[in-house]
């Protein structure tokens, strides 16, 4: 009996004579794509006044600068004591260049007023009122509201996916929602340029049916036809009349086990502005309570696979066996449950090569008393739960995690972690007055972890107590290190800026496609000083989130004079969808954003 495993070829050691090491600009494979001339644009760093931090101090820090940067968004959850479950799950966020001016903007997804309130022992329902998603455009380092962005809300907003669905080089936006007959549901917005969007939901066929509950979603080219298809998670078939209590007998939000799970949806882009539901044909019709998702080629067969974090049920690893056809293989590959065989309450997902072996590892956030879980990719066994040895169990045990991202925050060459937290039930956080103030009853801190030799240590950052949900990554201030944006249920959008100038050498890689759009799911390898780092351009991950498309690498070397002389050995880019679509650059300057645009 054979067992299908997600086997990904380990990278050859740097300097070996393996296939990857043979590639260079002058030895491009003789295919149509490889014959293209790559225009590698070296963009100057915005700020280079480096400063080395003392080893004794935390290697990085973040400061919430939302207010100073002009960001004033507060998520509307619409809570009125009815304990309507979707209201405790929202607050999506995205970081992307909405207006095409080269810097990063931010989108905050609003919930709205769902209209449910408690009257006596029953529930009264008034007409819903749509929320107000907010696009913040960056201009000279500050952000301002795009008042006429066209991103008007439909439904009760949850999460966001960003991608160029019409192939015009501009990022379009999909917003998932809890759908209501009056307020609508999921929405697709076409980017018109200049920070303006057009609602094309009806034309696209993506309008969702009332009662459907969309959570995380992402764009991917599933059928290899060159345009982006859409995969969107459905959480539960929610029954609002079911009530639950906490241990003291107070009303509280119900857990997912009280409701039927819902089947996720795969939509094929026909290239003409319409999406067709191909869920059943794709084999993805199994119902499960999905909250987090990421797409990557886990089995190295050239096709994108999907990994779904399910709440309270086994996670799913959907391996794409032929274009648009998937089979589920999480159990056989060790990614369905934790090392104790237990399904956990999967919320958010971070994808990244945490241990530097060239394989994409998975970090999943979970419910309080479960611990978050780090699955290390193994070339023979699929995934191995290494939470205990990585020391991520203890700090995460008392918290409920949602959004998360790997990132080399201290630019030392390995990946660190950030996680938002926020309860979904009251739990052992000291219970306070049940006024409907979500933060007081459910608020938990955002945590940052520094990696040191495979172990993760919490880094002291301001202890917030908001109900953390989305977490998006990107170098917002263009200074060469990563910043973060976090969405909070019923709370503010926070903009976590890394306030110090990068103390170590770095490189950012921005991979584009032929029309200048983001080259989704491209893979970038960088080699320097005998060490190789690999990152995948996967914007859709975390929870209800879309990350910046620019990949960030750190090299661990102090950078006092980095601007002039520092160079790294090699950068190799593999575009997704065509094995021959690759490019190798040698002797590349550091402390730059490298934008790679294939030109016809």
């Amino acid at each position: 009996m054979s067992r299908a495993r997600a086997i990904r070829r380990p990278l050859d050691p740097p300097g070996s004579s393996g296939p990857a090491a043979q590639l260079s600009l002058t030895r491009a494979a003789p295919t149509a794509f490889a014959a293209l001339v790559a225009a590698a644009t070296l963009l100057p760093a915005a700020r280079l006044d480096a400063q080395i931090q003392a080893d004794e101090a935390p290697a990085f820090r973040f400061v919430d600068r939302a207010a100073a940067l002009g960001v004033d968004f507060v998520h509307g959850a619409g809570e009125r004591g009815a304990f309507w479950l979707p209201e405790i799950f929202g607050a999506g966020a995205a970081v992307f260049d909405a207006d095409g001016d080269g810097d990063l903007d931010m989108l905050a997804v609003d919930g709205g007023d769902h209209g449910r309130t408690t009257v006596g022992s029953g529930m009264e329902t008034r007409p819903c009122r749509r929320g107000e998603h907010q696009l913040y455009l960056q201009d000279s380092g500050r952000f301002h509201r795009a008042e006429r962005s066209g991103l008007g809300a439909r439904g009760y907003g949850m999460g966001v996916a960003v991608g160029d669905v019409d192939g015009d080089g501009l990022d379009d936006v999909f917003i998932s929602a809890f759908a209501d007959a009056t307020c609508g549901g999921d929405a697709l917005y076409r980017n018109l340029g200049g920070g303006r969007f057009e609602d094309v939901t009806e034309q696209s066929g993506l309008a969702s049916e009332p009662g459907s509950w969309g959570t995380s979603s992402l764009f991917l080219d599933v059928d290899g036809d060159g345009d982006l298809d859409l995969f969107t998670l459905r959480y539960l078939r929610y029954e609002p009349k079911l009530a639950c209590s906490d241990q003291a007998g107070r009303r509280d939000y119900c857990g997912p086990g009280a409701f039927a799970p819902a089947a996720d949806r795969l939509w094929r882009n026909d290239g003409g502005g319409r999406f067709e539901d191909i869920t059943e044909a794709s084999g993805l019709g199994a119902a499960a309570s999905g909250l987090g998702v990421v797409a990557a080629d886990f089995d190295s067969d050239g096709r994108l696979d999907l990994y779904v974090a399910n709440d309270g049920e086994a996670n799913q690893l959907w391996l794409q066996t032929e274009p648009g056809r998937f089979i589920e293989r999480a159990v056989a590959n060790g990614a369905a449950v934790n090392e104790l065989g237990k399904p956990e309450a999967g919320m958010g997902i971070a994808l990244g090569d945490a241990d530097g072996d060239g394989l994409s590892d998975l970090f999943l956030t979970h419910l309080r008393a479960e611990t978050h879980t780090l699955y290390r990719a193994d070339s023979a066994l699929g995934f191995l739960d290494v939470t205990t040895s990585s020391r991520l169990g203890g700090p995460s045990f008392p918290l409920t995690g949602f959004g998360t991202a790997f990132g080399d925050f201290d630019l030392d060459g390995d990946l660190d972690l950030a996680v938002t937290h926020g309860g979904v039930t009251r739990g052992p956080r000291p219970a306070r007055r049940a006024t409907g103030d979500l933060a007081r009853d459910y608020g938990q801190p955002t945590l940052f972890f520094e990696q040191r030799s495979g172990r993760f240590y919490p880094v002291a950052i301001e202890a917030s107590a908001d109900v953390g949900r989305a977490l998006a990554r990107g170098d917002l201030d263009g200074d060469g290190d990563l910043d973060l944006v976090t969405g909070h249920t019923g709370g503010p959008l926070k903009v976590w800026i890394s306030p110090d100038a990068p103390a170590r050498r770095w490189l950012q890689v921005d991979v584009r496609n032929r029309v200048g759009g983001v080259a989704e799911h491209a893979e970038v390898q960088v080699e320097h000083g005998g060490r190789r780092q690999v990152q995948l351009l996967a914007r859709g991950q975390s929870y209800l989130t879309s990350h910046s498309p620019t990949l960030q690498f750190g090299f661990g070397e102090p950078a006092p004079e980095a601007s002039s002389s520092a160079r790294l050995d090699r950068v190799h880019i593999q575009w997704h969808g065509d094995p021959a679509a690759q490019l190798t650059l040698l002797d590349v300057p550091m402390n730059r954003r490298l934008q790679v645009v294939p030109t016809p």
Partner: protein
Amino acid sequence: MSYSKIVTPAQNPPTVRLLLLCGLLATAPAPEPVLATPGEGGPPLPDLQRVEPPVRKKIESRQSEVVARPESAEAWGRLGMALDIHDFEASAESAYARALALDPDHFPWAYYRALTLTEISDPRAADAFDRALELNPNFSPLLIRYGDFLLDAGDADGARLHYSRGLEADGDGLTYAFFGLARLALADGDLEAAAAHAEQATALDPSNRDAWGLLAELHRRRGQDRRAAEARQAYAAIRGPAVLADVFMAELMEEGVSSFWHHKRGQFFLASRLDERAEAEFRRAIELSPHAIFFESLARALLIQERSDEAEEAVRRALEVAPDLASSHLFLGRLLVRAGRPEEGLASLRRAAELRPDTAAAQEFGRQLVAAGERVEGMRWLERSLEVEEEPQVLLGVAFFYATTPDAELRDGEKSERMARRLLEITGERPEIFDVLGAAFAAQGRFDEAIQAAERAERLARGRGSPMVLQMRRRLELYRAGQPFIASR
């Protein structure tokens, strides 16, 4: 109450220790607000607004005892228990601490305090565990919980010490001690030792689901697919997580007076076949909060007592409160079918299956349809349930149906073959799977392969003394004669 785990700074180098402490401060919950101050000498209490009346009454009563006898460790400890069980851990910890200050040698207060501190992620938990251990060094639940705490804190040596002591200690912690040692060995990368410990845990307590789950993963990592599948099956067959027997925790649970705890205790009594006590607990929960789930639990307790009419009334109350509660529709459907009202029962089961096409609802509906002679629709629902969970017995039944159905239009050997192969992946080699695979090959006219599969099925079944051998032989003879096996209508 579960127990928490935090990092132990002592196990890390100085620089990292600083980071850990900072991190812990960041994760520690904010102090519980003092919103109600009792009379002179009394303890600060959390906000008791909106808690159910018996909870408030109990806590306030315990508070009065403390006010009346402020030097009584017993009064402070009992107040801590009343707070603790109703999720006011921070206040509970204060009360336990006061009780310990008054009576430093009383083990329960030290034990509860250690568990409460872990629950709220307080760095003082390690010291509290040490104090409890001084007072009762041979209590296995304490040793196991402290071992778990240290393992997750990264202190492998400390964890090993306490698990090893758990092997020798009083109480029922032996299984958990082996389980902990298995986790330790896994963290060390010693798969063989880990598997040996996990196997000891399952041998000592075959109902320990956690140990089976760990064993499944260990077998997977060792490349032993069949054993992994068997362990996964054992895991899936056990309802509910393993519970470490602990007299002190049992005493704490008794303190719960909210609808939540009445319901919890009712479930425990139901599982223990103490049906009348379960009924009483469920009725008390309903008095406090008439939740649909409580009515459904009451219906279960009544049905077990053969009080079908009352059970039906209770579950219909559940559906009045929450009309789309799939589990109640499922329960009602089963009840009605059993009561000889199949049409009503099927209607309820259909509703349950539509609401929740998971294993229980869709499978039950599918089975009942098949039993009612509606095999085609029944199979459709059974197949639908497989989309959610590949329950091996259902998969086997559906695969057999598609290979052998007398309806030629429905017969689908390829589909049956796919299902049988999937079964082999899930459960490993079993005679009945090769039997179905043989039938699937035969349905496609691939008789050589059918014969091979059927021979293998017959050989395996014979080796296991299975009563299926005769049927398998008959099918084998058919294949040798170039005929598929067709089930009777």
